[in-house]
């Protein structure tokens, strides 16, 4: 019989599964405990007997030859590198193109949202009983009216000699940003001009002629301000007003 210490750990000790500290403690114990030492010796003999008895069968040479013949010599590393070379760039390409498509579609969606909002602002103003808050054809009346109402200033063109008439202006908002909404008239048509600070957020917006909800539009950036011209007149008329505004600013 063995004592409690030996009972629990003797097999693990003989199998080499104890930690160095536990093994050292067991060695000390075995030197002191003759019962455990005898048991350990018997178990070692048992392990050796099984090890010797277990090495019993040897394969025939024909079997070895058959198995060896069936094995290919293709190195594992080459196989794995082959797949890496083929697949990694392909997967990267897919990821990049997906990301690009996502970016483009989001940028397009954002642009459409802004243009749609501008068209809405234009229509809402025209539908209002008071399309403008400052009613004047004189740019020297309209421009000062915005002082203190919006955080920037701008220049308006002299319209003498042109077909355009200034109707007035109002404060408007686009994406929680205040800006100037000016209303011009060309024959029987009203044209909106929006001016906002260019904060870079609208960088995705293209400059030049645009179209949204059947309205013709134009947009550009000058002196830190983003201009939009929106109306149901022809693109050429929109361009004519744009040119006047560009030259004035």
């Amino acid at each position, binding site marked *: 019989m063995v004592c409690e210490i030996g009972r629990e750990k003797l097999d693990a000790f003989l199998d080499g599964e104890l930690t160095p500290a536990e093994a050292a403690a067991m060695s000390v114990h075995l030197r002191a405990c003759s019962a455990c030492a005898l048991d350990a010796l018997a178990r070692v003999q048992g392990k050796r007997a099984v090890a010797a008895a277990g090495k019993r069968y040897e394969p025939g040479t024909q079997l070895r030859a058959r198995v060896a013949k069936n094995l290919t010599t293709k190195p*594992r590393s080459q196989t794995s590198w082959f797949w890496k070379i083929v697949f990694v760039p392909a997967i990267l390409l897919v990821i990049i193109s997906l990301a690009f498509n996502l970016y483009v579609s989001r940028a397009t969606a954002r642009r459409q949202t802004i243009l749609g909002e501008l068209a809405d602002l234009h229509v809402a103003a025209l539908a209002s009983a008071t399309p403008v808050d400052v009613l004047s054809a004189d740019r020297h009346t309209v421009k000062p009216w915005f002082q203190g109402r919006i955080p920037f200033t701008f220049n308006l063109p002299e319209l003498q000699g042109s077909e355009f008439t200034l109707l007035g202006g109002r404060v408007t908002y686009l994406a929680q940003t205040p800006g100037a909404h000016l209303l011009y008239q060309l024959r029987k048509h009203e044209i909106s001009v929006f001016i906002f600070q260019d904060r870079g957020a609208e960088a995705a917006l293209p400059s030049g002629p645009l179209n949204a909800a059947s309205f013709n539009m134009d947009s550009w950036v000058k002196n830190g301000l983003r201009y939009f011209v929106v109306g149901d007149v022809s693109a050429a008329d929109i361009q004519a007003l744009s040119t006047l505004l560009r030259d004035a600013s």
Partner: protein
Amino acid sequence: MEVPDQPLPAATFEDLALPLFDQLYNFARWLTQDTAEAEDLVQETYAKALRGFSSFQVGTNFRAWMYRILRNSFLNSRSGLKTTVVFDEEDHETVGSAGSPNPESLMIEQANREIVQQALADLPVHYREILLLCEVEEMSYEELAQALAIPLGTVMSRLFRARKALRSLLQQRLAGGGHGM
């Protein structure tokens, strides 16, 4: 033979698997108790391992992986399916001495290799395999857990019970004394 845990980057399946050939055959022959079946089992093991080599994870134990394939192939074979898989985990007996007098001493004094071999052959497969892998292949408990697909705690308890069962068989034979010692 020692096989590195982590195959070298350029190591081929052949480099890793062929050195295990003799041991795998010995183990297969012990499991099947039949030469022709053992040969089939070894061939099947190599074929399966070669096919699955791309899924072998570098860093895991190749030897334990090969034994696991062999063992699973055996359990799915005709003779393997006849094997009663005994779930011995309900036995909560404390791991320790398997009784006296020490049959190991008697083993050395009286038993020759044949009687131990006969006792091993008479053991249930799940005891025979863990004893062979532990004592003949000198697998660590961790390797045993991987090769046999059992938790580490089960390795220790099953190993204890296997040794106890072997001692018991040897005691019976030595007490009977009529087995051609």
